[in-house]
Every structure is written in structure tokens, then in C-alpha cells.
């Protein structure tokens, strides 16, 4: 097995909040994972669970308050802005909102070659680079003269992908690469990313809350809740037999395109706790149908089971249903 390209170790991100003392709130509360070359790692969780904050921390756009981030053998979380500059050639970011992340006053040609100008173009033939990048992402060369408002959502995504791969990175972090796209266009963008991953040997971190997408594209998946990983493992293993009740609830809630499907759902109270007042003990116990006395007082640590990890005192067996719902399945 190859060496990880990215190692994130016990990373914490805190945001100052007026009136609650020096500590602030923890947007990311002690997260560890690694990504190997050619691998796709997915971060799932609802809005506000810390996925984007974690991605920004990895990319150096957000300072961390604890932990360590290593990329291609170098520690990067302590680097200055100038030191980070060459790192960002190797690790690129695709931001949410396809059109919003492209400057409306630049043409597609300028947009895809902007990374070269920022990182020193040293005699590159910009026209040739434009052609190379546009053809890599499957756009006609004459798109170089278009402006972002003349692009469809899927085309704008392709331009975003072209910008991300311009400098031959080793890792791409894609934040909701398909949010707001229709299923047909979503497939195109994911196929493109996967094709580039295979051809260029890229590693990828994909952030999404679409579980069906994760199932198809990710090798490994981490489920986030209130800034922590509550379950991590091989995607197929996690989807096949979730160990943490939140993962199980997420998977059982996933609406499927079949009007006759009878759902055996694990229903959760909809009140997500605030980061300002994290619950004591296991932070999921306020919504957990299986919670027991111990869960509200002691915080569970991370338990490793082979290649998988989870944070739960009472991990689930396959097909488990909450007390009182056993007959529903």
C-alpha cells in the first residue's frame, strides 16, 4: 500500500464567539484521517457539521488551533502564506457554487490559465495550455472566449475542474462538486473527475451530502457530526453495515426514486444541537434512539475495528432497528 499523500492528525478549528470566553466554538473538534494517491475520500454530514471548515483547514485557508497536517511529507499547518504558495500547486480546491467561483469579467480562457499567472507562467504557451485543459475537461476550444454567464451549470463546473487540474496537482479537494446540478449533469461531472483521477493518478477529497453519490465514487467515507468523525471506513463496509446510529439513520433516511418503496426508517428528533452548547457525553445522545444512561455522561472515544473507526459505546449490528421499531423492517 502506498504512503498517504495527506495526513490529518487530531485537527481542531476554533472560532472566537463574543460572550462565551476565550475558548470559542469548535467547528472541527479533533479529526484524523489520511488520503493515499489515487484514492477518493468522501466527507459526508449535514450543513454546519464542519466539512467545509475542515477542507479549508487542509488547504491552509483556515488556521487550526490544534493538531498537525502533513502533505507530501511536509508539515503544512505551520507554514507561512509564502511557504504555502508552492504547496497549493500540488493541492487544488474546487469551491461550491460553480458560477459564483468564476470571476464574471474573465473569459473561460483567462480563467483556466489564471493558475499559471498566479504561480508564475515561465514561458508557457497559454494558448496551448488553454486548449489542453479545455479538451481534458471535454469543452470545445471555442469556449475560451465565453464568459461565465454564458455557461450552463455543468459547463461552469467543467471550467472549475480545468482550473483545479491546471498545475498538475496531486490532490483535489472538491467541495460539493455536484450541488445544484441535475442527475444527468451530475453524472457527467463525477465521471470527468473519476476519469481524471485515473488518468492523472490524482487523490481526491469529495465533500457532499448526497449519499448516493458517495456510494458510487468514494473508496473511503467519513461521516461528520458536530465537527467530529463519528464513523470512518471503506465506503462499501460503512454503507453495508453502519456501526454508528447516526450513519444508520442517514442511510435509512435516504429517499429513493421508487414511489412504492416501503421505508423502514430510523427517525430522529430534528433538533440538531448547537455548537455553542455541545451535549455532554456522546454528542449524538440527544437524538439517538438507542441512547443509554452512560451515553449522556461519558464521551466515547474513537474505537478502531480493523480498517474502520467509530465513536459509539453500543455499535450496531447489521439490520438493527431502534427499540420499539424492530418489527418495522
Amino acid at each position, binding site marked *: 500500500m502506498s504512503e498517504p499523500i495527506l495526513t490529518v492528525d487530531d485537527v481542531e478549528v476554533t472560532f472566537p464567539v463574543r460572550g462565551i470566553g476565550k475558548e470559542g466554538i469548535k467547528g472541527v473538534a479533533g479529526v484524523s484521517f489520511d488520503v493515499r494517491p489515487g484514492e477518493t475520500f468522501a466527507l459526508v454530514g*449535514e450543513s454546519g457539521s464542519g466539512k467545509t471548515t475542515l477542507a479549508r483547514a487542509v488547504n491552509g485557508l483556515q488556521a487550526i488551533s490544534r493538531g498537525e497536517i502533513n502533505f507530501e511529507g511536509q508539515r503544512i499547518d505551520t507554514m507561512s502564506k509564502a511557504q504555502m504558495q508552492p504547496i497549493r500547486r500540488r493541492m487544488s480546491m474546487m469551491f461550491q457554487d460553480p458560477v459564483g467561483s468564476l470571476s464574471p469579467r474573465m473569459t473561460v480562457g483567462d480563467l483556466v490559465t489564471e493558475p499559471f499567472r498566479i504561480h508564475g507562467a515561465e514561458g508557457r504557451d497559454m494558448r496551448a495550455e488553454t486548449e489542453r485543459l479545455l479538451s481534458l475537461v471535454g469543452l470545445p476550444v471555442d469556449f475560451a472566449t465565453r464568459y461565465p454567464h454564458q455557461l450552463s451549470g455543468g459547463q461552469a463546473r467543467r471550467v472549475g475542474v480545468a482550473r483545479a487540474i491546471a498545475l498538475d496537482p496531486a490532490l483535489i479537494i472538491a467541495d460539493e462538486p455536484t450541488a445544484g446540478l441535475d442527475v444527468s449533469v451530475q453524472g457527467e461531472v463525477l465521471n470527468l473527475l473519476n476519469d481524471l483521477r485515473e488518468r492523472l493518478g490524482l487523490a481526491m477529497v469529495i465533500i457532499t451530502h448526497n449519499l448516493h453519490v458517495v456510494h458510487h465514487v468514494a473508496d473511503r467515507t467519513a461521516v461528520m457530526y458536530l465537527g467530529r468523525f463519528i464513523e470512518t471506513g471503506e465506503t*462499501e463496509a460503512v454503507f453495508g453495515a453502519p456501526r454508528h446510529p447516526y450513519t444508520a439513520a442517514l442511510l435509512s433516511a435516504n*429517499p429513493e426514486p421508487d414511489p412504492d418503496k416501503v421505508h423502514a426508517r430510523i427517525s430522529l428528533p430534528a433538533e440538531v444541537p448547537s455548537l455553542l452548547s455541545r451535549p455532554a457525553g456522546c454528542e449524538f445522545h440527544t437524538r439517538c434512539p438507542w441512547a443509554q444512561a452512560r451515553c449522556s455522561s461519558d464521551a466515547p472515544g474513537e474505537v478502531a475495528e480493523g480498517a474502520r473507526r467509530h465513536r459509539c459505546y453500543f455499535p450496531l449490528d447489521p439490520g438493527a432497528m431502534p427499540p420499539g421499531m424492530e418489527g418495522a423492517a
Partner: protein
Amino acid sequence: MTTLAISGLNVWFSTEDGPLHALKDVEFDVPERSIVGIVGESGCGKSTLINAILGLLADNGSIEGGSIQFEGAQDLVILGPKEMQDLRGPRISTVFQDPMGALNPVLTVGRQMVNIQYRDGGSTAEKRARAEEMLSLVRIPDAKAALDRYPHQFSGGMKQRIAIAMALMMKPALLIADEPTTALDATLEVATIELLKDLQEEIGCSVLFISHHLGVIAELCDEVVVMYAGEVVERGSVRQIFNDPRHPYTVRLLECDPARQTSRSRNLPTIPGEIPDLRQRPAGCVFAPRCHRVHAGCDQAQSLVEIGEGHAARCNLALEPQTAEATA
């Protein structure tokens, strides 16, 4: 009574490069007390349709023919701006994707909920009581205290439920919900659509529900309208559309849903090609350039073919059942 009956609706936009035919002969009903879903790719005219119904088309857009009958009494196409304004809110209300866009960040939730009742007489205390009642209805815990909190003090799912409470406060006849669950995780998404279904039954309103998420449409809606390039290409009950789609576009769209791929696959299905330029609509079937079943008859304009009770598709092959493995 039909809440909304749209027939022969055509919308044009004038652009620098000539007139753009954004909606063409759109025709469907939203029956009373029903939930109708609209699906289709970006650019298929979903937003234009909503804006046409609400009377909020951009200045360069105009309705050229057709009617939008509301509650069998008023044609929204010919209603003046003042009359439309009186309908928006009390009779037709909306929920959008981003609840923060609907909530004012510098006013408490209670203040906003009292403010939107400005049309009604009665004291502020009565309006507050009504707001509290609505918040409990959308299952906000401790509704009374919630009235004095600001939007940022609620989670994303709760904000969306507050937006739903505000939209339904005046007991409208029609709620237009545009991607209301896109920003939520699966557990909150399901909770929100279940809530929407319960409230719809309780209030007795109709809902026009727009979503990319075919799973949510399948679960929530009674009827489905499939749009492509500004046309209704197929409509029918949720079972007719999901179990027996007759338009090749519907077939392909359903196949693209990763949720339909039971085995894990890195290579997801897509629909090759692009939506045509609506300034130069093809003379025949609008989907023909991308269609896997295109044949000689497709260069003629297509009309909606009735297949069964309430089920129609704009395709000359509509009467033949479609095979599942159409992608070959």
C-alpha cells in the same frame, strides 16, 4: 376545483441575440389538495414557470398567450400588479432553497412573523399567539421562547421549518416550494418532507414542488410534470412516471439517478448532448438531437399523446412501453 390550471402558456424573453422562447405550450393542472412535482435539467424553464405564476417575470420577459387559472376564478396572466400583490402571500406563497434568504437576520423570528400579518386586523398579542401556534405546528421546540430569537440561533433544518411556517401562516391555497430540502442532510430532508406533507393535509392547500432529487419527488408527490427545454414532455401520477415512463427523456433522466444504480459503479450514466438554444428551437421534437430512439417522424412538432388516465407524453412513441435498457 383545480387550484391551478395552466394551459397553452408561452413565455418569451427578448435578448441581445434575438427572442428566446423559454416556455412553449405549457399545460398541466395542480388539483386541489395535491402535491405536484416538477423535474427537469437546469435551464428547462422551472424557474421561469414559477416566476410566470407569481407574476414576477423579469422586465425582458413576457407571457405571449395561454392562461393560468387560479382556483377557477382568476386568470393570473391578465391580473394587474396590484391584484397579484394581494394574492402573493395570503393565497400563493413560496419556500426557497436557502431559508436565510427568506429570513431577515437582524429581526427576531417573532417580529418577522408578526410583521407578515400586516394585512390582518387585531392586536400584536393576537398575532404573536398565531405565530407561536405556527412554530409549534412545524415542531419548533419551546415555540414561545423561539419567537424572541434571531434566525442565526437556529440550525439549518429549523430555519427551513420556520420559513415553511411563515409561508403557511396565511393558509394559502397554493404553496410553491423550490428545492426546499437541498441544503439539508438526509435525516432532516426526510423530516422536512414529512412535515410538509402533514401540513399540506392539515391546511388543505396544494403544493407545487420543484426538486432535482428524484427520490424526494417519488416520496412526496402525487403527480409529476417532467420538463425539457421549456416544454412539458411528460406528466402523470408519480407511479406512472416512475414505473412506466413513456418519454425517452424521462427514461434517461430516471436512469441517470445514482440511486437507481444498485451495483456500485464509477461510471455513472449521463445524457450526452446539450439543451438546444431556445432562440433557435428545432422544428421537430425538441429532444430529438439527444434522443436514443430518434426516427423519421421526429422532425415534426410533437403533441402530447394521452396514454392513460392523467398520463401524457410529448412523443410519437408514447403508446409503446419503453424498455429499461434504452442506453444501449
